[in-house]
């Protein structure tokens, strides 16, 4: 049997009801994956509700209280658990807000690229022929674009764009999300195309056709639901990838613009006095590291749990 046949068979013989239980059991056996999932949950919890409990805003500056160390109190009596940055802003507050942005960028990019890639891949694989050839050549083209130079150019061009209905400080976030998703949808597109190529040959697809079901319905009601397992895995891994790229861009100064904090631009700001005040760089660095590592472990574990033969 070929790999495709084995995969198809695995898809068809998996037990539907107990599938969640089986996947969950296999997932928690994967220690690092479970640890990743727990870390992600804690991070999410902190950045979502954490800022509510902070007495400061991420723009509040205390003059004369720059670069305080951890566990210090400024001359106005404010307590700073992790200290303050070079403008006297509370570090923990900024880290939490930055986490909101960084994680939101990660999830948004992953969501957008998955939706876009899934649609292109499913249509391409289902219709085949010229549609497929053209779509796949576009994918090849996008893959050949060196992403970093393009990202730099694009973010400079789009930096001052006004997007109606979106607050000024959010425009750079939206721009980054769109650019990243626009470059990374090719992965899910290829993945889904491959799945659909084998699924469309299954008799249930022919049966639907014989019943007079429209192509759109077959794609969205049969092809995509049956390719869900690898899509979930790839979108989990994509979150981590997007966080990394966003911090690289922000580190280079072309990502999300100040004063909106992200882990990437906080790292970038800390760079100037890195030797004197290494903690300013350490905090966002460690958080990026933790978040990306967790998503990668969780994604790996999920892949092994859903289909051990699936390699991406």
């Amino acid at each position, binding site marked *: 049997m070929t790999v495709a046949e084995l995969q198809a068979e695995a898809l068809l013989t*998996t037990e539907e009801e107990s599938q969640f239980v089986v996947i969950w059991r296999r997932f928690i056996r994967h220690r690092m994956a479970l640890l990743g999932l727990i870390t992600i949950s804690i991070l999410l919890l902190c950045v979502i509700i954490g800022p509510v409990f902070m007495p400061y805003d991420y723009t509040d500056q205390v003059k004369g209280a720059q670069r305080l160390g951890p566990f210090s109190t400024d001359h106005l009596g404010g307590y700073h658990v992790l200290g303050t940055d070079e403008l006297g802003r509370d570090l923990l507050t900024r880290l939490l807000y930055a986490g909101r942005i960084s994680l939101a960028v990660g999830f948004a990019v992953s969501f957008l690229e998955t939706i876009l890639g899934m649609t292109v891949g499913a249509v391409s694989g289902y219709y085949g022929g010229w549609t497929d050839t053209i779509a796949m050549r576009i994918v090849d083209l996008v893959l050949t674009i060196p992403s970093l130079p393009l990202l730099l150019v694009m973010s400079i061009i789009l930096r001052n764009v006004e997007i109606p209905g979106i607050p000024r400080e959010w425009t750079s976030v939206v721009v980054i999300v769109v650019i990243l998703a626009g470059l990374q949808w090719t992965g899910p597109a290829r993945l889904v195309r491959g799945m659909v190529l084998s699924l469309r040959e299954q008799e249930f697809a022919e049966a639907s056709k014989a019943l007079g079901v429209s192509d759109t319905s077959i794609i969205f009601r049969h092809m995509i639901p049956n390719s869900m397992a690898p899509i979930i895995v790839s979108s989990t891994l994509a979150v981590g990838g997007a966080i990394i790229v966003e911090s690289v861009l922000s580190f280079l100064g072309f990502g999300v613009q100040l004063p909106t904090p992200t882990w990437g631009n906080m790292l970038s700001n800390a760079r100037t006095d890195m030797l004197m005040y290494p903690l300013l760089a350490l905090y966002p660095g460690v958080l990026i590291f933790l978040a990306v590592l967790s998503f990668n472990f969780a994604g790996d574990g999920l892949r092994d749990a859903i289909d051990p033969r699936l390699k991406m």
Partner: protein
Amino acid sequence: MKNDLLVVENLVKYFPIRGGILQRVQNWVRAVDNVSFTIKKGETLGLVGESGCGKSTTGRTILRLTPQTSGKVWFDNKDLFSLGSSEMKKIRRDLQIIFQDPYSSLDPRMIVGESISEGLRAHGIGTPQERRQIVAETLVRVGLRAEHARRYPHEFSGGQRQRIGIARALTMKPKLIIADEPVSALDVSIQSTVLNLLDELQEEMGLTYVFIAHDLSVVEHISDRIGVMYLGKIVELAPRDDLFNDPQHPYTQALLSSIPIPNPHKRRKRIILEGDVPSASNPPPGCRFHTRCPVAVDRCRIDMPDFEEKIAGHFTACHLVEKI
């Protein structure tokens, strides 16, 4: 022509073999080569033949699940291959198919009720409640229970799934059902119950079947007329009893002699064919069967025999069969 529900005329389906760096067509697989037959309303036509002889491709091409190379198909006096997509969609209600593999013919991620009512949804028939009602009735009709609609395919046995496949075709109230080896994947005890169900449904709903199979005893049980296919062509087409009692074509004779007799004291003279079926991408010249035919003469290697009505109602494609 008036009583004929389906008329297939010179149906041809070639699949291209592509190769080389430019992916040019280098050769063709002649899966179905000049196949013609007619089916009357309420009749069952059995199509038999060994693997790869083009039986299933014939069925799929008639339904326009795969595009034809040439030929014509009339269904209900409408030329199927010239219909636009909206007319074709309408006519699909009358033309249904039951598949061989009960495992891959149902979407594993869709509850059975959804699968069965998919055609109704696509054609905008009934409200959701009415559709649920139709699904429940159809499930009961094929010998399952109404509450099975909420389950997933993996919760059923092969025979039950095949019944679900039949139910899916039935909801459309079709005139013609192409049954593509509907019992080949089932074990013998289940085969007969499914065959009986198909028989009953035919009587009740006035269905017409094209019944594709490789098992002669199954075909004998259900068919009114039988067509024998070999390498993309029909070599013999006759009413069931004529074919079984008086096979004309040497291939049919060999095929029938292979049916075991359930009596250890009786022996039938078996005709053992030598060699394999030639490749459909490079079929032999003349009669396609001459390479394995025990009685072939020189003419068979050059001349392609016509498919003629040698005896009234009994068509054969063989030089050696005299026309009466």
